[in-house]
Every structure is written in C-alpha cells, then in structure tokens.
C-alpha cells in the first residue's frame, strides 16, 4: 500500500530525508523478520535519538498509524512484524555506547549489536552476559524487548537480570527513565515490566546494562552419545550433582550434520546427540567441575569426550552451536524455529514426542536445546513453496506447544510471544491473568499504539472495547 503522502512528509520534516523510507521496496523488505510471518509496513524511520523517536510517535499517532520497533530483524516470533499497517521505528542508528568502567555498567543505544558490546568491553575484562545464539547480529533493544536469554543464561540469568535502567518513549511521546544504578530501585519496579514487554509499552531509546567480569578460567567440552536418552540423563545428573554449568547445550544428529557442513569443526556426526558443556570461574573450580561433567557423561555411555584445547577450538565449538538455526537451508529452503520450555527431567519424553509429531506430519525436525534449563528449539524444516506445507508446520508447532505445557512446561523460553504464540496465551494464562497484563499495558499505551495485536490475544481485556487486532496474523 502506498504510504500516505503527508505522513511521509511530516516524518521527513522531523528526521530529514535520509531518516525515512517509504517506497514499495522498503515496505516489502522491512515487512518481515527472521520468522515466518509477514506484516505490512507504511513507512520506515531511522531516528537517531529519543527526541526523534518521540517526534515519530506523535506524527504516527496524528495520522492514526500504529508503531512497531525493529532492530536487526533477527526475531523469530514476529515481535517486529506489524500485525496491521504501521510506521516502523528502526533502532539501528541509535548505537552509542558509554561505558562506566568503575561501576561496570554501560549506557547503550538499542541499536547496539549484542556481541559488539562484549567486544568493545573485552579490553576491560568485561562482557554482557546474555548471549542469544543470534548475538553476532541481534540488537540490545531486541534483547530487552524479548528478555532474551542464550546458552549462558543458565548460570547468569536472562536480560532482565542485566538491565539496570531503561529510557523509553511512551504513547504520549514522553521520554521516561525507569530503574537506576541501584540494584533495587525505589518505587514500583517498572524496569522489569518494560524488559520483556515486546515493544507494547513504548520504544526503548537507551539502556543501562550491567557488565559482567570475564571469568578467569573457562573449559568447554563436547560429549557425544549414541542415544539421545543417554545425553538427556547426563544433563539431569550434572544439574542434580549441584553444579551449575555456564552452559549446557544439546544438538541432535540431523542438526549436528547440518552445522558440520558449515563450520567444519570435525563434529561427531555419527552420534545421536551431542552435548556442549561449558564451565567457568576460578581455575581449580573449573577443573573440578569439568571432571564431574566428563565422568557423568562417561557413566552414561559417552562415546567421545572432547575438551577444547585452546580458545580457537572453543570458539569453533560455539560457532557450531550458534549457527545452528541458519544452517538448515542446505536441507530445505524454510525453517520454523520453535521455542518452548519443559521441565529438564522430561527431556527424553519431550524429544520422543517431538519426533513422533514430526513423523505423523511427515516433516523433518532438527533439535537444538538449551538442555540445562529445558528450553527446546525444535526446527521444523520445510519448503514453503509447496502448497499447504506451512499450515502443516504450524499445526505441528501448536502440538509441540501443547505437549510442552502438558509436561509441565510453558509457551516460550526466550523468543517472546510476538504474533507467533499470541493466540496460545490462553493455554497458560486465565482470563484474569490476561486481563491484568492488558491493564498493565494500557497504563502506558492506552490506545494500543505500540505493536498492537502482539503478545496479548484479542479479548484479553475482560471489558474489551473491540480494538482492531491483527487480521491475517497467524496461529
């Protein structure tokens, strides 16, 4: 749809010509993130600071358009995909970093790439702990929106544990700062409400993050198993032994094979499952914990144990894990990367059910799992150009969610609800729960200006005033 001319004119007046794009090609290329849902974009804006964001918010409101924030577009749940024609606020040009070395904090723009922050602070011996697998590309604004985790959130906690304050623009165009340098801010903890709100409360323009000292020692190892159940039993026993590894990841055989084609890390492609475990801390503790993991693995029949000999091998192991979700196009042109959580001790059952669902639907499934905290990422691999395939994949995804909840787990581990799981929210929340969330959201954004139709399903409000919600958004 062509952008309303005077909307674009007004935006250009505020941001300059190079800060606004609204040609059909721009509308198309910004209408989707890394997931499977496409939305509709009217105009794309690139504000450089909170004042400009505020201007965009007011202009969009005046013209009656909703607003959706977007970083690098690596989200998988459609959190940056408009459910109705919207003005997009792209945060990539808000990428300032101001480090406070003494306090181990940094004020960062939402457009800073996650890994860039850790690289910039490496010389100070610091890093930003949340490390989603897309960390080389995803932005901190997106991490805040989705309360992102990553392999190391097993020990370190997710984004909310590493954000001290957030500056954001609300629906009235006001610039607010919530939280502060104190670990426990006075008053209501609105900061924790904003983190994970998936862009429904406002647009984040600055973030005060906590930086974590790099551990003095790290050991990373691969353990190969000829049965998935052996790998799963190893995970359970490692956690039960009292160790909290820095990360404990699993990949199944199809996944390992796809990844090996890209990284050439000599991965054990014959194994049914591979565990990637990392321990960090003081040298003596690291050695002892690595020994425990290795001996537990061997007791459960590990066919191969490989300890990273140097930093290069360690990084290669992580590259293998973190490129998993992109590596599948060698097998089929499309993938649906899912995100659910199950209790850790039911991993074997869950995987068997996932394989059974895929078999029933005649789909190929590959698994990467944050095994330590039971966060599943089944990837359903398919060819979207085959009519009906996407629908089959989506129905399989719903079955996987239902199974996860039946086993005592939940909807989403770290990708967010977005458009993807909005209509499954009622599987885990009662009408009263949803009403409370809707009322909280409306305290900041009464008119559902920000990311409407995302996260909360239609009718969440007990008194629903019939707001337009996502036509054509799926699930």
């Amino acid at each position: 749809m062509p952008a309303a001319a005077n909307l674009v004119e007004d935006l250009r007046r505020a941001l300059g010509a190079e800060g606004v794009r609204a040609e059909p090609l721009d509308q198309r290329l910004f209408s989707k993130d890394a997931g499977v849902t496409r939305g509709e974009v009217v105009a794309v804006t690139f504000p450089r600071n909170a004042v400009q964001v505020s201007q965009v918010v007011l202009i969009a409101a005046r013209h009656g358009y909703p607003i959706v924030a977007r970083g690098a577009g690596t989200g998988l749940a459609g959190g940056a995909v408009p459910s109705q024609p919207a003005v997009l606020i792209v945060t990539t040009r808000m990428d300032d970093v101001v480090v406070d070395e003494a306090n181990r904090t940094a004020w960062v723009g939402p457009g800073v790439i996650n890994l860039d922050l850790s690289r910039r602070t490496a010389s100070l011996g610091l890093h930003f702990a949340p490390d989603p697998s897309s960390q080389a590309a995803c932005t901190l604004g997106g991490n805040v929106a989705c309360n992102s985790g990553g392999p190391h959130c097993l020990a370190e906690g997710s984004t909310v544990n590493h954000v001290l304050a957030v500056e954001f623009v609300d629906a009235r165009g006001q610039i607010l700062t919530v939280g502060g340098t104190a670990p426990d801010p006075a008053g209501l903890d609105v900061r924790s409400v904003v983190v994970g709100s998936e862009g429904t409360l406002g647009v984040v323009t600055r973030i005060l993050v906590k930086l974590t000292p790099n551990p003095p020692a790290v050991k990373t190892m691969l353990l190969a198993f000829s049965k998935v159940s052996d790998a799963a039993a190893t995970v359970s026993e490692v956690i039960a032994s009292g160790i909290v590894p820095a990360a404990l990841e699993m990949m199944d055989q199809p996944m390992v094979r796809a990844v090996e084609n890209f990284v050439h890390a000599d991965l054990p492609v014959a194994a049914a499952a591979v565990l990637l475990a990392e321990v960090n801390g003081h040298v003596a503790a690291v050695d002892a914990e690595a020994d425990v993991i290795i001996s537990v693995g061997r007791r459960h029949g590990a066919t191969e144990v490989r300890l990273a000999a140097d930093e290069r091998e360690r990084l290669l192991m992580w590259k293998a894990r973190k490129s998993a979700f992109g590596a599948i196009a060698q097998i089929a042109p499309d993938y649906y990367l899912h995100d659910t959580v199950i209790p850790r001790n039911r991993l074997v059952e869950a995987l068997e059910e996932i394989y059974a669902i895929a078999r029933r639907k005649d789909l190929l499934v590959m698994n990467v799992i944050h095994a330590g905290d039971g966060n599943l990422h089944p990837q359903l691999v398919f060819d979207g150009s085959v009519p009906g395939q996407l629908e089959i994949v989506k129905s399989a995804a719903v079955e996987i969610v239902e199974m996860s909840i039946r086993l005592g787990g939940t909807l989403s581990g770290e990708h967010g609800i977005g458009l993807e799981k909005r209509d499954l929210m009622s599987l885990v929340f009662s009408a009263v729960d949803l009403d409370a969330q809707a009322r909280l959201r409306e305290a900041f954004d009464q008119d559902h200006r920000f990311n409407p139709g995302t996260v909360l399903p239609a009718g969440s409000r007990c008194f629903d005033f019939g707001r337009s919600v996502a036509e054509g958004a799926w699930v």
Partner: protein
Amino acid sequence: MTVWQTKWAPTPRELAACVECGLCLPHCPTFRLTGDETASPRGRLNAMSAVAAGTLPLDSAFAEVMEFCLQCRACEAACPSLVRFGRVMEGARAEVAAAFPREGRLGRRVAGHWLESPRAVGVATFGAALAQRIGGRHWFPRRLRVGLTGLRRLPLRRRSIRGRDVGAGSDPVATVGLLAGCVMDPWFAAVHEETIGVLVSAGYRVVVPDDQTCCGALAAHDGAADDAARLAATNVQAFAGVDLVVANAAGCSAHLAGYGHVVEAGTELASRAIDATVLVARAIGAGRLPQLPSNGRRAAIQDPCHLRHAQRVVDEPRSILRAAGFEVVEIDPDGLCCGAAGTYSVVRPDTSFELGERKAAQVRAAAVDLVASANPGCEIQLRAHLGSGVRVAHPIEIYAEALHSARDHDLAGSG
C-alpha cells in the same frame, strides 16, 4: 513467466538457500554504515526474490539496492546456509544491466572491453603517468582522484611480463601459469617481477601465456556477464597447458576460482586456480623457501575481501610476512571492506571514501609504517587514504625484498 531476461539471473534454488536468519547483517559494510535492511545481504536477496516472484518491479529502486552492494562477499563467509551471494549478485547485476542498458554503460564498456586491451590500458596508463609527473591530478574528476593519489609511480613506457617463461631448467615442481591481469601488468610491475622471482626460487617454472586476457572479474561484478564469459573462455584456452593458474591479485584469483559459474569449461580451470600467497605460503611451509629470522619490525595486514571472505584465505599472507621476519599486527577483526571494491570507488566515491577512512584509521591506530595487502585495488585505496607516512605493498613483494637483503647480507658477509 519471469521478469528476468538473461541466463545469469539468480535461480530459484540459489535464492531459496537464504533462510533470512540475519546472521550476515553485521558483516556487511553497507549495513554497518546505514543500519538499513535494504543495504544488507538479506535485504538484497529478498529484493531479488520479490522481483523474481513479480511482487516488486525490476525498477530503478531495485537497481539502486543492487548497485549499492560492494560485492565484498563478507556475507558469504558468515552464512551458515552457504548462500553463494557473490554469484547471485553478479546475476542480479547482469539483470539490472539488461533492464537499464543505458545506465552504467560506460563502466561496463570499460570493464568488459577496454581492460582486455593492453593498448587501451596503456593509453590510460600513459595519461596517468603524465599526470603524476606534471601534477595535473586536479584536472581529473573527484571520483578518479582518489585512485590517482593511491597509484604507484607509473612508467611512461609500456612494458609487460607477457610471454615470459622462466625456471624451466632445473626439474620444476610444477608449471604455473601467471595471470598478467589488466592493470597489474602495467601498474604493478614490481609485484609481478617479485612474484615470478619468488615462485622460481620455490622451484616452479613460471609461464605467462601471451594469449591470455583480463580475468573478467570487474566485468562480472558490473553486470557485463556476457563479456565476462568471453574473457573467461579466452583464459581457459590460454592456460590449458599449465598445472596451476596463479594470480597475485585477490580479486582475480577469487574470480578464477569461480570460473565454473562464468563459463561452461571454467570448472576445470577453477580447480587449478590458486592465489599466489597460498602457493608461496605452502612453499615456505614445505621448506622450499626460507623462513627468515625476525627483523624486529612490525607490519600490519589488510585482508582483501576476495582473499579472506571469497576464498577464506587468512593464514597464508600472515605466514609470508612472518617468514619475511615481521611481527604481524592485526588491524580489523572483521575484515570489513576498505571500500575500493573494484570500480566501486569510482562509481560511488562517497561510500568508498567513508570505508577507506575507517580502514586508514585502523591502520593508524596500529602505529605501523608498513601494511601488506594482496590486492591492487585495496593497495591504491590504502595509499590514497594513508598518505605518504605508511608504505603499502604486496606480501610477496615484502617477502622477496627480505630475501634479497638477506642474500646481499650473506654476500657481504662471505665477501
């Protein structure tokens, strides 16, 4: 019904290889500069897919998105789905050229026809050499000025290594055919001489076939795909008799390695193509060339994109510098393009300039007085942006000079 007009168009299979994960984005120089999806590899592939599907027209907006790409192929090295972005983009550029035959015609004419003619290159070289001597640089348009500033001192008289055949005498390890190249031959004569010398020292017979031509990389990048195919076919013939086809310009060696996409008979030549730095590094590793003791000096390494990203050659130039006695200083962990990018510096001087300044700042931060770069375009760009305080040279040239001075030293010592 497809909108594509040429046989070079991106194929459905090539485009489907992208799963839109976005891992390429931070590796793309133009995305880094703009933060704009339409300036990213994923955006460009999506634009191609939309045009192929008829969702978007093949219009000037599409052309702009394709032509903003540097074709550095950094995204290719970052792609877990192994999208062959360089090849796909060359196809898209050929389509843009077919759809807009008037725009960019001069550039394609230069890349597709003039560069293959030693006479045409010779005339241009003479003009530039004159300008160097009488100081007429300011007469040239700004887009050519950076290149002129970064050139080595050019000879007024044309000379060429074509037709050379050396090192046949002493039971050579193998016969290598050296690509003379379009501008390497007149503009980088010293690099050619040193390459030949080092390869002969390593035990190779080096021949420079007379009937070879420009590799065609610039033609392919600029959308003159048919010309690129014609040039490749000529080289397939010219290099039929040698064991290895060697180029000492990264852009050329990368293109030779991709000949399979350019011309039907190209796959076989591609299997014999190798960058000179790889061959020399191997010879050093095998003990056929000496490892010189440390000279206590530092040298920075600049990775040409078509060496590092397109061919994944990273260690070899470094090991050559170390063998020459230098401590190697890294300047850029990502190997972001310096902005030279073939004809890009002429076609899009502003973007090229911004990237050139970034790279120069990285070199200055390393506080070195020598930078090694194995590609002529990068060398010119670096010299133009660094000024006279830092020497820029080919790694093989640096190694050869170290060999000469070690030899002189030995002679002086024994004499």
